[in-house]
């Protein structure tokens, strides 16, 4: 599949779709927050337009159809003909969800789109587009029409002193539209000149002026074929203007010098006419005007002139294009066409290439609009990026991991050889170490991505959850730009999704209950990301009712999770919800009560080396805090020794280390050792024994104890033989070639080239409590 170039292009299209949809939603949210910036509306339009354009090229009919309706409404909004009010934006948001569904379905990644939902939104969009009335026949989107809708250019905006009597549709040039929103609803000097947009069905025929750019030919299009297509729509009279053709010695064979004027009879719609030029519209100057409407033709020509002008300045096209324009204008003016237009047009265009007389007062109007976006256009200022196959990045990261290990090994060999640190080699090695560290950091930065990609999916989730529960919810996000390793990001989405659903389903109250409690009817859920001491922290908080502690405790007792007479602190009760098999919803709701609870969330967070904690205030709400390592590739660890084995303990789990005093050791029931640590007793875990390296009884003498804290905030004392020091290690998976080993989180390679195991603190501490001496692994093995 991937060898198929078409598939590859399609894959690129879907990648772009993802970005476009993200932009789309982001911009819609900006609109929702009250912005009326025309640039934002334009950006939304462009995103939908681009999705539709690509989808059309791949024949994704459902997607095109939906995008078309969406785009039509956006066009109304950006031209200012329809107000971009709150209900509209809400509908647009839901439409963007369905559009995303259509994209996912087309990609084969998602379930087929719910036809009822899709059709419902199409109806809503159309209702908004056509002001509630049934779509006018003229504007009713042809179901089989995959062509681009004509982008109406509002000529009223650059109305000439004489007054342009009627609408002239300009060619839809998306690239130009992107840079120069000529259709911006600039103040109209004469409201009466408001173009009538539903007009395109007019007339007995069309006059089409078509001037191909060299690019058109470069992309293997052929004028003859276009003309033949046009001829299918009705009888045509074609005139070719070759007056732009230079003498032979000046002829640049790859340039385009010819202009065609086609008069098409019959009742083809403008859409049909433009459809013919669908794939070349970016690469030509095109005007389509009703036949016999002299003024309109004049306007069209003026518009072409004007457009080329702004085109040239905005796009900074090759300087030669201006000459082309001059040639075009001159030739059009001089061309003895039958249309009455040229007579009027001639004086207009004659003085070219100087600013033409009648359009000149026009120009200042569009110019600022054209210039402004160029100055403020964020894409231009955005850093240049490239797309790189993730596998390549991973290969680089692995290689750098090896480099780090190799460097450490070299340093160790040098030390062992008795060479002084101040020797040339020693100093050189130090520089190498710095450099290695720098390379490693830079490589890690390549994989780092803002959490935005996850956060962006959440507004939709919240909307749907709110809809399903009938609650009013506002999602407030912050820290979207916080960066974290890609592997972490990928695995953040599910836990966050789950916790947001929980917050809405269980945390927030219904509108009445909220009002009764003196809170605003609309609940607020906050999603925040921030960096804190080398980790990323994600906070999910709601302003709901908080954890109902008596009920939580009751359920825990009922499910046999705790003893009935257990005395628990508030904190401990809150943490009960992380126990497997715990679910507080009395009725299993559609939304979050699917039997998987917070224990699943906690486990997936822990598998990333993270922690989750909760704090809750009754009546005020709850906050879940996730803390995760920034990368899964390296780890700050404490290198320790236990019975001749070298092990690594994650630094994040270590509270402190100390040399134990025999007098501080006590035995619970005479068997299980505990260590007195700051007036508290913590279980003492002999690492060498729990790991199965040593069967002999624990010897405290000469040992060192590390006080560690587990995810669930339990403390324990790990007894090891020695602590060798702190070191950043490269994490190597055991699972890739073997399997998960209880008590071991991963492996790493130390300076001596040997493999050292990274301890899974949580498993060690719980293993201490639950472990039976039977070697069950052995039986399972054969």
């Amino acid at each position, binding site marked *: 599949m991937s060898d198929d170039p078409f598939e590859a292009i399609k894959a690129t299209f879907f990648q772009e779709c993802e970005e476009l949809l993200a932009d789309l939603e982001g911009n819609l949210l900006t609109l929702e927050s009250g912005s009326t910036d025309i640039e934002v509306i334009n950006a939304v339009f462009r995103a939908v337009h681009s999705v539709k354009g690509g989808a059309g090229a791949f024949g994704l009919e459902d997607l095109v159809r939906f995008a078309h309706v969406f785009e039509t409404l956006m066009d109304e909004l950006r031209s200012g003909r329809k107000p971009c009010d709150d209900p509209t934006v809400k509908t647009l948001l839901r439409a963007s969800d369905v559009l995303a569904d259509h994209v996912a379905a087309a990609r084969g990644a998602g379930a087929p789109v719910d036809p009822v939902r899709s059709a419902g939104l199409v109806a809503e969009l159309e209702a908004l587009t056509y002001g509630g009335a049934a779509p006018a026949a003229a504007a009713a989107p042809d179901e089989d029409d995959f062509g681009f809708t004509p982008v109406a250019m509002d000529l009223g905006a650059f109305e000439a002193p004489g007054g342009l009597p009627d609408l002239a549709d300009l060619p839809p040039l998306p690239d130009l539209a992107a840079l120069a929103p000529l259709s911006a609803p600039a103040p109209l000097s004469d409201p009466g000149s408001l173009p009538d947009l539903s007009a395109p069905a007019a007339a007995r025929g069309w006059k089409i002026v078509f001037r191909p750019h060299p690019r058109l030919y470069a992309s293997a299009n052929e004028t003859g074929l276009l003309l033949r297509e046009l001829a299918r729509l009705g009888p045509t009279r074609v005139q070719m203007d070759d007056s732009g053709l230079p003498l032979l010695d000046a002829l640049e064979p790859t340039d385009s010098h010819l202009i065609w004027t086609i008069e098409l009879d019959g009742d083809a719609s403008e859409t049909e006419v433009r459809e013919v030029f669908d794939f070349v519209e970016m690469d030509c100057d095109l005007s389509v005007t009703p036949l016999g409407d002299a003024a309109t033709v004049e306007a069209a020509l003026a518009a072409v002139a004007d457009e080329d002008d702004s085109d040239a300045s905005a796009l900074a096209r090759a300087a030669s294009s201006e000459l082309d324009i001059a040639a075009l204008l001159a030739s059009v003016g001089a061309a003895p066409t039958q249309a009455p237009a040229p007579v009027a047009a001639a004086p207009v265009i004659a003085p070219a290439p100087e600013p033409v007389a009648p359009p000149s007062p026009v120009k200042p109007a569009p110019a600022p609009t054209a210039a402004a976006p160029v100055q403020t256009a964020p894409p231009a200022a955005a850093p240049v990026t490239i797309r790189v196959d993730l596998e390549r990045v991973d290969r680089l990261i*692995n290689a750098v*991991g*090896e480099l780090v*290990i190799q460097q450490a090994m070299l340093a160790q060999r040098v030390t062992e050889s008795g060479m002084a640190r101040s020797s040339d080699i020693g100093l050189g090695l130090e520089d190498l170490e710095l450099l290695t560290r720098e390379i490693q950091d830079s490589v890690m930065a390549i994989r780092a991505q803002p959490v935005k990609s996850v956060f962006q999916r959440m507004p939709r989730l919240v909307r749907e959850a709110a809809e399903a529960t009938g609650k009013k919810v506002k999602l407030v996000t912050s820290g979207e730009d916080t960066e974290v390793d890609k592997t972490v990001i990928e695995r953040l989405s599910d836990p966050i999704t789950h916790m947001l659903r929980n917050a809405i389903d269980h945390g927030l109250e219904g509108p009445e209950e909220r009002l009764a409690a003196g809170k605003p009817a609309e609940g607020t859920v906050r999603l925040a990301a921030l960096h804190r001491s080398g980790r990323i922290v994600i906070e999910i908080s709601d302003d709901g009712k908080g954890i109902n502690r008596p009920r939580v405790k009751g359920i825990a007792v009922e499910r046999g999770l705790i003893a009935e007479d257990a005395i628990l602190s508030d904190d401990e009760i809150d943490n009960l919800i992380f126990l497997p098999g715990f679910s507080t919803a009395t009725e299993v709701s559609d939304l979050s009560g699917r039997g998987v609870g917070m224990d699943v969330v906690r486990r997936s967070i822990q598998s990333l080396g993270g922690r989750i904690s909760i704090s809750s205030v009754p009546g005020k709400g709850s906050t879940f805090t996730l803390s995760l390592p920034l990368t899964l590739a390296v780890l700050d660890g404490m290198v320790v020794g236990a019975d001749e*084995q070298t092990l690594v303990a994650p630094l994040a789990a270590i509270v402190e280390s100390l040399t134990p005093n025999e007098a501080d050791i006590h035995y619970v029931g005479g068997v299980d050792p505990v260590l007195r640590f700051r007036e508290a007793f913590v279980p003492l875990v002999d690492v060498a024994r*729990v*790991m*199965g*390296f040593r069967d002999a009884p624990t010897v405290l003498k000469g040992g060192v104890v590390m006080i560690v804290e587990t995810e669930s905030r339990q403390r324990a004392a790990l007894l090891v033989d020695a602590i060798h020091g702190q070191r950043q290690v490269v994490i*190597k*998976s*055991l699972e*890739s*070639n*073997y*399997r998960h*080993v*209880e*008590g*071991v989180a991963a*492996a790493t*390679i130390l300076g001596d*080239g*040997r*493999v*050292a*195991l990274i301890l899974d603190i949580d498993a060690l501490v719980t293993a201490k409590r639950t472990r039976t001496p039977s*070697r069950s*692994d*052995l039986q*399972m*093995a*054969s």
Partner: protein
Amino acid sequence: MTTIEQTLTPNVAGTDRELIAFRIGEQEFCVDIMSVREIRGWTPATPLPRSPAYMKGVINLRGVVLPIIDLGARFGLATNEPTERHVIMVAHVGSRLVGLLVDAVSDIVQLSDAAIQPTPDVASDHVKSFVKGIFAVEGGRMISLIDLDHVLPESEAEAA
């Protein structure tokens, strides 16, 4: 070793596969040469907690954490502590890379599929799960063809 070479040379016509023959104790086994990536000397491995006895631990193979399986122990044969003269065959098993600890690698054998006989029914199920077939060489010796897919614990082989 030379005997094997001599005995097998006449069979070269109709060669279907190349195998690597190795020795564990007094027994000879072989695996498909395509599954073996490299052969290296024994280096002490880092033991893994609570692992089966045949799991000698993991070593660093140029940055890859390589699990070492004592093949003799895996087959249920009596084994000794590995020494420097022992050999690790680095082999692909499914998508994994594992090191197989054996006493010595004896030869490269070329063999036609037709020469392989099914494992006789006398063998226990445990042995049969590893031995794909046997073939005779002159001198009354027998080499067993090993199926590496079952060398890792079953539950893992499925997952792989």
